[in-house]
């Protein structure tokens, strides 16, 4: 089956679609808030643990270049998003900075979906991808918020407290903490819990499926906001990820990542945060309209990447690797 079709028929994509449909037919179905939170804790912590175990095997010299390009993406993507939104989209400073903070950061679930997809295509990504994920999460938010804070008179909250908020946020604690725990505990201890936390296992994939079912419900309940954001943001939510994704695939390939690794880095660059960024932006840039950034990241870009973007970045990575000699 071709990548796109196979991806559209994956449990995660179908579960997401089911969640959206449930909301469209006005079903009262939704996962309890706390269960949704628990699933995300499990997914992020598993990702961190597994990443830490793998990092223990990794050669530092192999990680160095990918880390550099990841940080570069973390600086470039918020700037490009801001420039496009302000220059072409004529958004206010606050709105442009608020949206840019989301596209400069990363959606962990998109990255997980990309890992699963790449594996399904027999292109196992490098084990240290979760490390890159943690590197990519916060710089973009800070850069975009800094622009917003510098250019608007009255910031909602001190930059320092928001910086703290982002660096100690749930996903950071679980990813970075999981990485360190995974690194420290070593293979033998990992063997005892691998059956539960393994990101290749059925429990992880099942939890991801349920999580996406609820994400579909959440996205579906904001579907009507699509009308409020205007055509520019609709186009931005699809084209900006493609640009960032191709940049990610290219830089990842340059940095020596495999096809799978480049696909995942591309998906991370292309993705927009919907966990860490929204509260940070809400507190720092109160004038930025939440409908814009939440709709763009959650209702447009997330499903686009999940359904179409990831296979696209995979093809790009494959092509780039082919052009590079393989």
């Amino acid at each position: 089956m071709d990548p796109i079709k196979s991806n559209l028929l994956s449990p995660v994509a179908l579960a997401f679609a089911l969640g959206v449909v449930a909301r469209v037919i006005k079903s009262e179905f939704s996962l309890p808030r706390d269960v949704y939170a628990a699933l995300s804790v499990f997914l992020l912590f598993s990702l961190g643990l597994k990443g830490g175990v793998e990092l223990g095997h990794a050669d530092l010299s192999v990680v160095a270049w990918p880390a550099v390009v990841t940080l570069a993406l973390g600086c470039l993507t918020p700037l490009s998003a801001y420039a496009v939104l302000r220059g072409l989209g004529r958004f206010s400073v606050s709105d442009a900075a608020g949206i840019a903070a989301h596209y400069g950061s990363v959606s962990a679930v998109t990255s997980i979906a990309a890992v699963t997809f790449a594996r399904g295509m027999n292109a196992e990504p490098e084990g240290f991808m979760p490390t890159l994920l943690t590197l990519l999460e916060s710089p973009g938010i800070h850069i975009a918020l800094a622009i917003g804070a510098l250019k608007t008179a009255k910031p909602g909250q001190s930059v320092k407290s928001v910086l703290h908020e982002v660096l100690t946020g749930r996903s950071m604690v679980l990813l970075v903490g999981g990485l360190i725990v995974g690194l420290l505990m070593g293979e033998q201890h990992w063997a005892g819990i691998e059956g539960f936390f393994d990101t290749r296992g059925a429990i992880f994939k099942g939890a991801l499926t349920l999580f996406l079912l609820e994400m579909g419900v959440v996205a579906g309940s904001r579907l009507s906001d699509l009308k409020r954001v205007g055509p520019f943001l609709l186009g931005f939510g699809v084209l900006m990820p493609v640009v960032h994704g191709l940049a990610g695939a290219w830089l990842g390939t340059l940095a020596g990542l495999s096809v799978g690794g480049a696909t995942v880095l591309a998906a991370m660059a292309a993705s927009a945060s919907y966990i860490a960024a929204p509260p940070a932006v809400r507190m720092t840039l109160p004038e930025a309209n939440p409908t814009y950034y939440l709709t763009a990241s959650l209702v447009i870009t997330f499903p686009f990447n999940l359904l179409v973007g990831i296979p696209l970045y995979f093809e790009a990575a494959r092509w780039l690797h082919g052009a590079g000699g393989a």
Partner: protein
Amino acid sequence: MMLERLKLVTLVAEPVLEERLTSKLLELGATGFTVTDSRGQGSRGIRASTVPGEGVRIEVVVSADVAAVILQHVKDEYFPSYAVIAWVAEVEVVRGDKYV
């Protein structure tokens, strides 16, 4: 029994504001506060949180003076850009001297 006449200020606000608001309340003279989770709908329709309508309902028993200061603060700082509602009621409080 001796009851003290005090004010009960109730704020319903976006969850993201909880910590900021409660520390400010203490700073402005409240001796404590009680928070419950809520959901709701309002006229301005700022769909601020991922799940629209989620909120925190903060109750604080204070003197009339402190109540006025709190309301002014909320009005100036939060009404322009955040989904917040604030109301005040008269209450009688047991051992009310503890809360002023």
